[in-house]
């Protein structure tokens, strides 16, 4: 028996994925463990290894189309294993879910023209790409690509009536099925994806402001602009997920905001000292310091320690119970092309500043190339979003469930401050803590924020 190569589920709420790139071609000999292809999920690009050694055949999973999780995308035939019509026939239903029926391949064999029926195909170089079961190309819905994935009949009807392209809607139902709520949310969001269903958390962008809720359909939005005055850029999976999860967070979590100013002078001085003391490390690109702390690294550590000091605030809300965390895992919003992602520094309270700093550099760089593993961006107990590098003075961030808090960090700047009746200059930084009021009440949030401020202003505490 040939070995099936499937599109694996690599993310918790992943129902479909796209192969961004194949590393082996039809007919190529592959070794078990070789990288076969790369999947783009909404968060990351994942490399998938060959599950067996042999010849790669029937590569039906095309690049750049949505494919259902678990669908076979190719087969590996052991050396010497017969490859024939029976096998091909058995695999007819392997199909990328967004291949339009019109593209049904009738590729002939190497030898010449052969009818595309399974019984007559003896050595196809590629199987016909059939539409997935249950979606008949002859029953295409008006204004609807026949390639749309799973959706309930109700969702299909509502989308049809609203003129909404169902393929732009992410499903939150079982198996990624688009349900009524998804369509309602999409319509409410003007075609953007959103869903209030209580699904498992995944790495979620934190710092972006929540999208304004518009009860407008795509058509209604577009009608407001002159034709030709814009380009339409289809959403990628990351954009859909960001939109969906932010609407979910902003509409279901009662946000509560607290703002404080922190004086940074002591912290900046300490940072300079520590960085100057960094030992030199040999690298490919020549000698480099073993670490180079940023203010943000210190903010991460301070936030983690503050949570340890105020453990009631290190919590997650669930309907049945309060989840009280034993570690402070701090997510850090990283802006990347096309979106943002929140890799997590686990047990940041226990890590040294240099460890945090190096870890952060690695995570950020891999985030930008979309190479993070799901476990590197899922979970966490709080998050930090820093827009200080843009000179932003103060802002409020959207909580990233399952977190109960998020700290929005503004720019450090010299301000005139009044201290002991005197006006003097100090480097000040405004921070705003957003809390999930179900889990963290105002006073508790204030206690946390004060603990954070104390650590920043007395930074030696960060070293112990």
């Amino acid at each position, binding site marked *: 028996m040939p070995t099936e190569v499937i599109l694996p589920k690599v993310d918790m709420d992943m129902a479909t994925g796209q192969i961004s790139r194949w590393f082996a071609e039809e007919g190529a000999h592959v070794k078990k463990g070789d990288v076969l292809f790369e999947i783009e999920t909404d968060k990351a690009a994942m490399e998938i290894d060959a599950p067996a050694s042999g010849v790669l055949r029937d590569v039906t999973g095309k690049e750049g189309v949505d494919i259902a999780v678990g669908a076979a995308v190719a087969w590996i035939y052991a050396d010497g294993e017969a490859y024939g019509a029976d096998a091909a026939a058995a695999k007819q239903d392997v199909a990328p879910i967004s291949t339009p029926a019109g593209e049904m391949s009738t590729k002939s064999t190497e030898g010449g023209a052969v009818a595309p029926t399974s019984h007559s195909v003896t050595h196809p170089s590629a199987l016909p790409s059939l539409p997935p079961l249950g979606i008949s190309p002859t029953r295409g819905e008006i204004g609807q690509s026949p390639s749309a994935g799973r959706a*309930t*009949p*109700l*969702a299909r*009807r509502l989308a049809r009536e609203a003129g909404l392209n169902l393929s732009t809607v992410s499903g939150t139902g*079982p198996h990624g099925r688009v*349900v009524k709520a998804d369509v309602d949310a999409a319509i409410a969001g003007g075609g953007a994806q959103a869903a209030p269903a209580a699904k498992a958390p995944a790495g979620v962008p934190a710092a972006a402001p929540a999208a304004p809720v518009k009860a407008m359909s795509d058509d209604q939005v577009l009608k407001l602009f002159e034709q030709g005055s814009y380009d339409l850029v289809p959403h990628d999976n990351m954009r859909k997920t960001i939109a969906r999860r932010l609407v979910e967070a902003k509409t279901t979590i009662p946000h509560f905001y607290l703002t404080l100013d922190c004086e940074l002078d002591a912290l900046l001085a300490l940072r300079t000292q520590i960085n100057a003391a960094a030992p030199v490390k040999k690298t490919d690109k020549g000698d480099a310091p073993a670490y180079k702390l940023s203010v943000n690294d210190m903010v991460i550590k301070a936030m983690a320690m503050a949570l340890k000091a105020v453990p009631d605030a290190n919590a997650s809300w669930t309907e049945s119970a309060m989840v009280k965390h034993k570690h402070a895992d701090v997510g850090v919003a990283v802006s990347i092309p096309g979106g943002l992602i929140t890799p997590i520094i686990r047990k940041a309270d226990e890590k040294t500043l240099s460890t945090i700093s190096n870890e952060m550099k690695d995570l950020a760089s891999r985030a930008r190339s979309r190479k993070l593993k799901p476990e590197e961006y899922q979970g966490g107990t709080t998050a930090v979003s820093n827009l200080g590098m843009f000179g932003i003075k103060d802002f409020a961030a959207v909580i990233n469930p399952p977190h109960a808090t998020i700290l929005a960090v503004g720019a450090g700047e010299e301000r005139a401050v009044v201290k002991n009746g005197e006006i003097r200059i100090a480097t000040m930084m405004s921070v705003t803590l957003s809390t999930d009021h179900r889990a963290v009440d105002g006073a508790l949030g204030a206690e946390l924020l004060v603990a954070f401020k104390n650590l920043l202003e007395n930074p030696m505490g960060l070293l112990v």
Partner: protein
Amino acid sequence: MDAMVRELSYAQAIQEAMAIAMDMDERVFLMGEDIGVYGGAFQVTGDLVERYGADRVIDTPISELGGAGVAVGAALTGMRPIFEFQFSDFATLAMEQIVNQAAKMRFMLGGEVSVPVVMRFPAGSGTGAAAQHSQSLEAWLGHVPGLKVIQPATPYDAKGMLLAAVADPDPVMIFEHKLLYKMKGPVPEGYYTVPIGKADIRREGRDLTIVATSIMVQKALDAAAVLESEGIDVEVVDLRTIRPMDKQTVIDSVKKTSRLLCVYEAVKTLGIGAEVSAMIAESEAFDYLDAPIVRLGGAETPIPYNPELEKVTVPQIPDIITAARDLVKGVR
């Protein structure tokens, strides 16, 4: 003036209906095994033999096929027999007369005759009677054009539907769940009918339609009460008649709730739930479905003797709660 309403058991309601029918129409009589002085295996006929005499409450030999045939012949020639099977399982012995004769006589004869026979079938599990005395075979008969098949779920319906059955010109098969016989409920005195072929919305809800039959109606209502506390609002449709089925009530309900769960005691495969599911899938309600249709039916086994095994063989309240919750929460 409204009739006086009392609490009667399901069995008492049936007995009262039979007495009223016999009082109103001298063509009505009862036939069955041990329905006379014994009072019926489940005491449904009770003391009717004392009130109406052995000529109208006729004990038959243990001859289900012959007895059913006699009832058919009597109905064909002007009488209004009510034939009691001791257990619905014994329908197997009489299928010839029910399926080939009673159901088809009018059709075969081009409408020249009617067969107004009523047959009563004590059905279902839960009494420890094991595999040959616990079946739910209503779908067998529901498959036969010419028959009407009903499953009253309350004492009120048991009386009103039996009286409707006696008045009906065609053969009506009544499946009575044995565990319902002791169920009490309000029953008006005197004559009234509950229409055959009309489902009843026993509880209105927004989130999910449960279509249930017979004893599963009460179980579904109990489940709905629990689900209500979780914020899940269940509509319970009591199908009452499986042939001819009240499609519109089910369709309308599913259009409202967008979700359908069918709950019935008979073996799941090829049962009432299959019919209701397919009917909905074919109907205008299809475009209103926001989740797959789910069936909860009996296991694919005979009914076992052991009480614990017997219980798990048919849907119970927790099963309904779980299935309903999963459907509404989008787990399935």
